[in-house]
Every structure is written in structure tokens, then in C-alpha cells.
């Protein structure tokens, strides 16, 4: 899947999900996480988060099972840190159970969609932060 296809898939799956639709349920969690860092470091950290999500999304989309499991572990920590709770739970689910291949593939696709959506929300967050 190309990134565009993942993003569009993410839009469809998220819009058909719960009412809120956002991967970042509460942006204050992301703000609190970024408040950890010095103000001069925050733009670079946000940019690195986007890079990390792009890399993780690619592995989930096209990687081997072992690589997908490692990517899921990384995603669990990152998603939990910025408040993408549902995505963190999905990543934890992938780690905890020995999934059949079809189920693992479906879970990876669902996570890819959520990752794509999350990236858009982070970009939007960054844009609104720069505007203020």
C-alpha cells in the first residue's frame, strides 16, 4: 500500500468507527508530553514523531512478522505517550496474542490506518501551534 492508500484507508476506517473519529482523543496529553521538553526542542521532537510514525507505518504495512511485532512494540510506547490510547491498545493486542496470519494482517492494516490518521492530526496540531 502506498502512503496515500493507507491514509485514505485510515480515513474510511476511522470515519466508520466511533463517533469521535480522532486518534488523539485528548490533545492535552500530547501537549503535556511535549511540555516535558525544552521549548526549543519541541519542533524537532514533533518532526521526529512524524518520521517515527512513517517508519513504523511502513513496517506494519510491508514488513515481516518479526519486524511488525517490533514495530508494534515501538508504536505502543509512542502512542501511549502522546495520548493515542486506542492505537496503543491495538499495538498491545498484537504483541500479546499469537495471531493467525489473517488476523495479524488485518490488525496491521487497521493500525496503519490509525497511524496515517494520527500523522494528519499531528501535522494539524503543529500548524495550530505555530499559528499561535
Amino acid at each position, binding site marked *: 500500500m502506498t502512503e496515500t492508500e493507507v491514509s485514505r484507508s485510515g480515513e474510511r476506517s476511522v470515519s466508520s468507527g466511533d463517533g469521535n473519529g480522532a486518534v488523539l482523543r485528548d490533545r492535552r*496529553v500530547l501537549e*503535556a*508530553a*511535549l*511540555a*516535558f*521538553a*525544552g521549548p526549543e*526542542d519541541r519542533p*524537532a*521532537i514533533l518532526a*521526529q*514523531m512524524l*518520521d*517515527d510514525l512513517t517508519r513504523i507505518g511502513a513496517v506494519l504495512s510491508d514488513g515481516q512478522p518479526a519486524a511488525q511485532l*517490533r514495530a508494534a*512494540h*515501538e508504536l*505502543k*510506547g*509512542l502512542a*501511549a*505517550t*502522546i*495520548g493515542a490510547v486506542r492505537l*496503543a491498545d491495538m499495538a*498491545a493486542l498484537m*504483541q*500479546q496474542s499469537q495471531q493467525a496470519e489473517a488476523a495479524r494482517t488485518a490488525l496491521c492494516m487497521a493500525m496503519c490506518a490509525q497511524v496515517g490518521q494520527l500523522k494528519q492530526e499531528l501535522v494539524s496540531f503543529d500548524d495550530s501551534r505555530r499559528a499561535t
Partner: protein
Amino acid sequence: MTKDATSTASVAPVLLIEDTPSLQMLYASALKRHGNTVQAHGTAADGLASFHDLKPDLVLLDLILPDGTGLEVMQEMLAARPHTRIIVITANGSINKAVEMMRAGAHEFLVKPIDETRLMAAVDNARKALSHRSAGALRNPVAPAGEMAPFIGASPAMQTVYARLRSVARSMATVFITGESGTGKELAAEAVHRASPRAKGPFIALNCGAIPVDLLESEVFGHLRGSFTGAISDKQGAAAAASGGTLFLDEICEMDLNLQTKLLRFLQTSTITPVGATKPRKVDVRIVCATNRNPLEEVRLGRFREDLYYRLHVVPIAMPPLRERGEDVIEIAERLLAEMAREEERGFTGLDEETKGLFRGFAWPGNVRQLINVLRNVVVMNDGPLVTRAMLPPEMTGLASHAPPARPAAAPAAAAPVAEGLDALAGRTLAQIERMVIEDTLRRHDGSVPKAARALDVSASTLYRKLDAWAKADAENGQV
């Protein structure tokens, strides 16, 4: 993976090993903002190379790395520099592995998502432990063979306990002490505190089984004036009182489930919210807890939260029953006998050989507390120079073997068997009725205090305290 080394302060560097680049940047930036020098890496190999090069005293280590496990990295670090304080970072769901890391020597573990308060508290605690060590405030972890205050006895069973207590004392790991009633669980908690860098701080003990359920939250977390009926002034709870030191939660399995939830939150955040307060406040405590129940059984029965169990059950210490401590029973008896004889102005100098044989062969279901009761009864009711068989309670001389548990030392002097129906209770005081019921229950369980306690749904230590109090009262009243 990224590598970043930035000197912003004169403090010793923190080595950070975290494989997700954005999280690595986040933690490094937070640490720098608080005046730390940070060296960050994303792989086990790079982290270890930097460790051997820089020799840092403090490491933040992710549990799972792309080229190795946090456990392997930590073991190599501690083998090279045993005093290194290693704070493990783990994602939710890896608690069991984090517990394994603590047992292997990690100083503390943090669960993602990590908030700034928790991260800096962990770093501060580790730095304090390091400064105490360099100032010589830490006790030598390799203590000479023998006893460990305040315990008496150098049996192999207790040597194992002493080694474990000394080992765990130097870290911030939560200690979970199990053992039958009267085996010295609170003494073990005190020993951990005394041997730790927090020895100069307060040691606050709270018996979760002895405090009414509706008051326990206030006892642990404090309350504000007016927060409930009877709260006529602000109260500092045990957690706040123990800040800088150790909080010992005895009979932890008797804690109400609602309060367990709040305790879990406290353990996760190091903050407390007194009853009636709106703002949490940070406290710095090391937790030691104890129970005479089987904690996993309590979890299975739904009476104890599984997540709280794993959060608390980091370093387990099992206190051996007195019957498994060999000659310790004689050593303890002789030392306590000497103290009691001085207090009561009696001429006792020791135990005769027959008494020693009976003590060695007795099951001691009430353990050291029962031994204390027996000795006190002997000293009050007799005079020396030696303790003889004739001075001992009948259940000891008649049932001198390990298999059947004996009756407790305090004989039921003022009791009568409970008659059928309530007629036998009419006209008696509540205290008398309580004593009749307890003593009848003991008879029904062949004198086993733990079994009677379970039947009555109270802790065994509660029964032993009552038996002790009755024995003293009977002695004062001249009753046998």
C-alpha cells in the same frame, strides 16, 4: 539511531538507552531541562559501549531494544559496576518483565507513558541513593555472618532472609513480605528501612487489618478539616508522614478494593490526594508491605487487585516459621527470658534441657509471638532459676511434635464453653461474650490461632493481641 551528548551542567551524566528516536529526544530534553547531562543511544551495543567508556552512575534503560534485551544490558552493566542505579522503562503489559528486572538489581521501573514528575522523582531518588553511598551512609551490603538487627537468630533459614533484606535495602524496589503470623514481618520491614539510604527518614507502619474500612483512606492519605463528619482538623496521613522514608503497609490483603485502586494510583504517580482535597501532592516514599495470607489466592478470589499485586510484588521475602529456624528458638527464648526476668524482677537464668527439647520439637503455630506469650506467662507465674517442663502450658507438654498445632499459651482462665442458643450470653458484657466466642472457636480448631482467625474473619495477629492481653489481665487478677 540517534546519538546525542550535551553538557548543560556539572552533574554526572545520565546514560539514556531508548530505541524510539522521538521518545529518546523527549526524555533527553526533559533531563537536560532539569540540569542533567545526557548521553543517549538507541541500541544495546551503542549503549554498552558508552557505558564502559563514560562509566555513568545512572542509567535509564528501555526494556526491549532492537539488538538485545534490557535484562542482558543491565546484567552486563551491574557486573562491571555493581553500584550503578538503573531505572528501567517499560510499556504497559510488560510489568512481569519489569519485576524480573527489579529482582535482578534494577533500582526502579517506570511505565510508559511517563510523566515528568515521575521521571524526575525517579532520577532524584537514584541520585540520592548514590550520594548516600558515596557519603558512607549505606551499610555494607556484605554484612558479617550472624544476625541482623532487630532479629535474633543465625539459622540458615534466617541467613537467607538477611541476605535478601540487605540486597533489597539499597534500592527503591517495593518489598512484599509474606509469612505466618508472628514470624517478624514488621521486624523485616524495619530491617529494610534501617539498611537503606532512607534510614534517617521516618518509618511509618500501618496495619490495614486493624483500621476500620471507612477510616483507612484517611489514615493512609490524610484528610482536610470538615471533609467528613468527625474530621475536626487536618490530618497528615501515613503516606505523607513517611515522605523521605519508608511506609510499611501490614496486612495489605485486608485492604478494601476501593482503597486498593487509590493505592495503585499512588504507587504509579507518587502523589496523594487527602480526603476532601482537590489538588494532589507529591510524596517520596519507599513501600514495604506484608500479609499472612496467600496473595495470589486473594487475587484469584477477587479480593486483591491483580495489577496492584504485580505492582507491589516486586521483591518477595518469605519469613520462615519458627519451627523451620532450628536453634533460633532456643536463642530467642533465652534472650527474651533474660529481658523479661529483669522487667519482672525474677531470678530466671535459662531453660533446662527438657524444656529446650520441648521447644525444639514444638510446632509453634503462633511463631515468635506465641513464644513471647509462653515466656511471659512462665516468668509472671513462676520464679527461676531455670524454666522447667512443669511451668509450661499443658498444650506444649502434651503435644510436643510438629504435626499437630498446639493451643496458644494464654489459657482461657475465665471462660466457659459456649452453650447452645443465646441464653448463655445473657447478662454478660460484650467483652466477655467476645472472649467466650474466640476461646470456643479456638477449641473447635484444636487451638490453632490461624485457623480460628480465618473462621472468625479476623487477622491472626488480632487474636494473638487479645490472648496476650487476657493472659496479662488474668495474671494480674491472680487467675491461673
